[in-house]
């Protein structure tokens, strides 16, 4: 990682300024109602800042950052509820291409992902949607000089706006990663409870595809990309949790009932104290996972699994409590609390549930002894 601490802080400051100026609540609400679900002009500026290429290697036009930088960037994005294909393109797809080791494909595809001109996403789970190897439900068969794909992929994020699809499919010789033109795929957009999110189910029927070469087994590359995505989501959850918590404490000081600020009532004050513990623990878990992943540490899987369930649960719990603590005002559409709850509930499913990550965590503990 070539970025120094001061440089990183300046980078984050610039990122936060951009989000404050261009991704305020009103912007989120406007953009989430558009069909594409993100602001292309803002996307250009995000790219210009280096965010879309954050984890892309410098030789492919990226910044060459790692998990720790990604986590911090996502904290700010999560606090602002940024609607964008950043996770799909700049993290999952960029991470997969980076991990896979197909030099030709990386040189051809990563520069566009890094400069934002190409939006990519990864189709990697079937309808069972556990984001595990067993659930891959697309098969690949040789066809002429290339391949053709059949089957289904579920919950593919930002598939509708993608210029490039990377599809994980079962070939006769094992799992592979395939490059597919999204135009050739039947795309069924899914109505998302988190209005800032875009997802689709994809159906492949003799769909032409190009197989990417892999220096490592395909699922290992997928796991490497998923680890980055897990850390990115943990960062998003930490940022979102903190923002909602602060919003709620501010409201508890401002809102008066019975002649007193409601934060003076222990019923509210004690909830707030408990949420401080949630919020701080969430940040600690996310940053720790990022550090361990960046360091290539042996305990990285344990740290990532811990962050995956601890941060998911903290974000859902905090946003849910925030609505309760606000009372009626947060039951209105106009109040932002539900937007965070919606994001929290989506983040708690992508890419695996808390229960599943708790199981992974225990498996890591068993192996560590």
């Amino acid at each position, binding site marked *: 990682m070539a970025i120094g601490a001061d440089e990183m802080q300046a980078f984050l400051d610039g990122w936060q300024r951009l989000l404050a100026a261009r991704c305020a609540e009103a912007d989120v609400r406007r953009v989430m109602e558009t069909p594409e679900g993100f602001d292309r002009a803002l996307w250009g500026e995000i790219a210009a800042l280096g965010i879309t290429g954050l984890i892309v290697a410098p030789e492919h036009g990226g910044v060459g950052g790692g998990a720790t930088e990604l986590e911090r960037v996502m904290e700010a994005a999560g606090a602002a509820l940024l609607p964008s294909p950043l996770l799909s393109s700049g993290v999952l797809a960029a991470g997969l291409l980076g991990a896979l080791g197909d030099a030709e494909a990386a040189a051809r595809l990563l520069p566009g992902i890094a400069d934002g001109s190409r939006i990519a996403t990864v189709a990697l789970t079937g309808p069972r949607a556990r984001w595990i190897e067993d659930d891959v439900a697309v098969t690949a068969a040789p066809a002429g000089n290339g391949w053709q794909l059949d089957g289904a992929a579920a919950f593919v994020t930002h598939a509708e706006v993608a210029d490039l699809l990377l599809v994980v499919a079962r070939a006769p010789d094992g799992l592979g990663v395939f490059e597919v033109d999204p135009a050739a795929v039947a795309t069924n957009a899914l109505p998302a409870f988190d209005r800032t999110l875009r997802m689709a189910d994809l159906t492949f029927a003799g769909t032409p595809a190009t197989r990417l070469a892999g220096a490592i087994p395909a699922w290992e590359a997928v796991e490497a990309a998923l680890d980055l995505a897990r850390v990115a989501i943990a960062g998003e959850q930490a940022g979102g949790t903190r923002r909602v918590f602060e919003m709620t404490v501010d409201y508890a000081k401002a809102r008066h009932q019975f002649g007193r600020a409601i*934060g003076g009532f222990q019923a509210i004050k004690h909830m707030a104290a408990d949420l401080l513990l949630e919020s*701080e623990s969430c940040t600690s878990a996310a940053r720790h996972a990022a550090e361990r992943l960046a360091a290539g540490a042996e305990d990285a899987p344990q740290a990532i699994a811990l962050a995956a369930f601890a941060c998911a649960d903290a974000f859902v719990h905090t946003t849910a409590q925030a609505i309760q603590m606000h009372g009626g005002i947060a039951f209105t559409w106009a109040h932002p609390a539900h937007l965070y709850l919606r994001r929290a509930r989506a983040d708690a499913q992508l890419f695996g549930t808390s*229960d599943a990550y708790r199981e992974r*965590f225990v498996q890591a503990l*068993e192996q560590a002894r």
Partner: protein
Amino acid sequence: MTDDELIAETRAFLAANWAPGRKSSGEAYGRHPDSDFLQRVLDAGFAVPTWPRESWGRGLSAAQGKLIEREFAAAGAPGAGQDRSNLWANTAAAHAQPDFRSHIVPLLLTGRVGMCLLYSEPGAGSDLAGVRTRADRDGDDYVINGQKVWTSGAADADYGMLICRTDWDVPKHKGLSFFFLPMQQPGIDVRPLRQITDEAHFNEVFITDARVPAANMLGKPGDGWRVLMTALAYERSVMGDAARGPRSGKAGPKGDAALVELAREAGMLEDPVVRQEIARVTAYKILNRLNNARAKADMAQGNSSPIMSLGKLAMSRILHSEAALRTRLLGPQSMLEGPQHPCAEDANFLTLNAYFTSIGGGTDQIQRNIIGERVLGLPKEPELDRELPFREVKAG
């Protein structure tokens, strides 16, 4: 004096006075077995180096004080850093009257007097300013009557740090006074207090017409609350034994995989519900550790951290949830006790002793008030009795 000179001097002192590898059994309620060595530490100015020269110190900076502490710690020698850790000496040095101060502080710094705390009462727990133990002036003495509770080390103590009421006609915080009460006298009756764990680590102290010289008062009459705040700030250092391990004496598995091992031993490791709970409880432990590490890093950079206030809540959650999980692993075995059933003994002890942390030193509920008010800036609890003359405050 440069840092290097200070380190050299400290090392020379330790080389001359402390046998390498010697173990110190440590201070308990004021008394220390190595008091002769502590006298030499005091004479050399290493006991409280950040205090001024005229008060047993050398006027060093906190950073230089830390250097001395580090050398002592490396040698395993006791007695340094008492300017940060000695609750008794710090309180006395800050507030005692001159004659008593010169008498008592050296004794406290050399571990020559046994001490105890006479704060809580049956009617004043969370609301400590509501104490009703009274001190009435009689010539050069005060006469003390009342009852204290949760006192450790009371039976052997030479002095108790006592908060009591000297004025009943002013609001509750304003009528308190603070004494070093001589404990070995007829009017003091110390009775062990049997806890829910069936142990007795604390005492009740019944005080009937006990006498204390007015010269032993810290601060002025009515200053007691302010003195108490000084003392409470230093109390953490003697409350270090908060979370105790299982009682069976069996070490048991350690580390992050400890609960995995316990579940394996219990034949429950394949139970998916148990596995979820193992993850939950282990996560609480690791998150607390990560939070503390992050707080330390923040503090090292000179920033304050809200996390410092969260440790107690986090620890309560860990202890109660771990005890519940251990109970779950045992099932009906948890109905048993006694040396034949060490696992049940452990689980049941941990279940009950978790309250030591969630109630002791201020309940979790009071801690949530403190976090809400001091960390998050939420409005303070209304106190209906704050401005009333104490005589009119409702009790019971």
